[in-house]
């Protein structure tokens, strides 16, 4: 019985530490950004963007209006990270389907710039 209590307490501690250990990594933020983009999820996209980048995020969201899009084989990594600013590039692609025709958008051409605001990493630019 004591052992079970210990296990439950340890699990609770782990959950607490993970939830308080800081924000999602810059790479994870960009994965979430791409997923929101193809899902047409304006709310999530806005939450993952700096205030100055929200308009561009909206434009990017609108740009997929005419197609059905999905993210395929995405893997993102940090090119730079000084604790306040980060640059993230991803491999993989967005497959944009129009009718029966697929168009592949190579994600490696896009590098997102992120800033840490409070405890959150946000997409603030592109290079």
């Amino acid at each position, binding site marked *: 019985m004591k052992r079970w209590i210990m296990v439950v307490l340890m699990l609770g501690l782990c959950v607490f530490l993970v939830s308080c250990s800081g924000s999602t990594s810059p790479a994870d933020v960009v994965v979430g950004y791409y997923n929101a983009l193809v899902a047409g999820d304006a709310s999530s996209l806005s939450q993952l963007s700096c205030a100055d980048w929200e308009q561009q995020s909206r434009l990017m*969201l609108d740009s997929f209006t005419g*197609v059905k899009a999905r993210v395929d084989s995405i893997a993102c990594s940090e090119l730079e990270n000084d604790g306040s600013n980060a640059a993230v590039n991803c491999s993989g692609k967005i497959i944009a389907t129009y009718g029966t025709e697929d168009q592949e958008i190579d994600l490696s051409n896009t590098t997102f710039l992120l800033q840490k605001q409070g405890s959150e990493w946000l997409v603030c630019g592109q290079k």
Partner: protein
Amino acid sequence: MRSRLLLIILLLTLVLAGTGGAPRPVHSSTIVQQVDDQSPERWREWPVVPVLSARAVEILNTAAQNSALDPHTFSKIGDCQFTPATFLAGYVKGDYSLPAEYEQTAHYFKESMVRDSITAANGLGVSSVLNPMFAAGAGYQECFKNETPLECELRTRRPVVVLVALGTNWKPGQEITFEENLRTVVEVILASGALPILATKADNIEKDWKLNLANARIAADYDIPLVNVWRAVQPLPNNGLQAPNNVYLTANGWLEQNRAWLRILDEVRVVLEP
């Protein structure tokens, strides 16, 4: 008493004559009518092919002297209905009959008529041409990494004229961003030295014609030409649209659209090649 009655009858006759069916001078109302006809709200009454304004001619004359631009080149911005499969290429390839009076124009612009544009492809909308992901990311090797399809098209093709037909790929709530983004597109084109030519669209997917109004408003604001494709296809069955969706043009709709654009290109060619 009798004279009073006669006076009343006379006055009534005069009043009725003043409001009756007698012809009235039309000068003032005609002037008002002319002014109103130019207002964007009355885009349905705008001609299918406008006469180029003095400003448009000035832009073309300046573009013709600009060594950074190719006077024989136009670019296209639009969706699948603006690709060579359905748009203009048929005049060069012999798929459509080319009226004799436009042979010179088809010859003048023949390379642009058969060539793909980076900014005209399936599913593209006004936001897509401003999103760099649809340039290099979409496989256009000639585009820089962070360049938009529009910037890449203008840099690599160096057009003097850019034909813009946007609005069909749209979803509810995008009216404001559509107009904002289209203004951006127009300003980028003007900054390159080229003349943008806008168009109305035949469909009404937005239900209240807001996008055609936006096209007309921008054309009026910038004093640039607008080809009224909507008006060109009105005489056709189902107004030139494929039933039941009523989004894309029928084959005859494509022909009418092509004819309208060919006519404006003819006006452009006359300015460029006096």
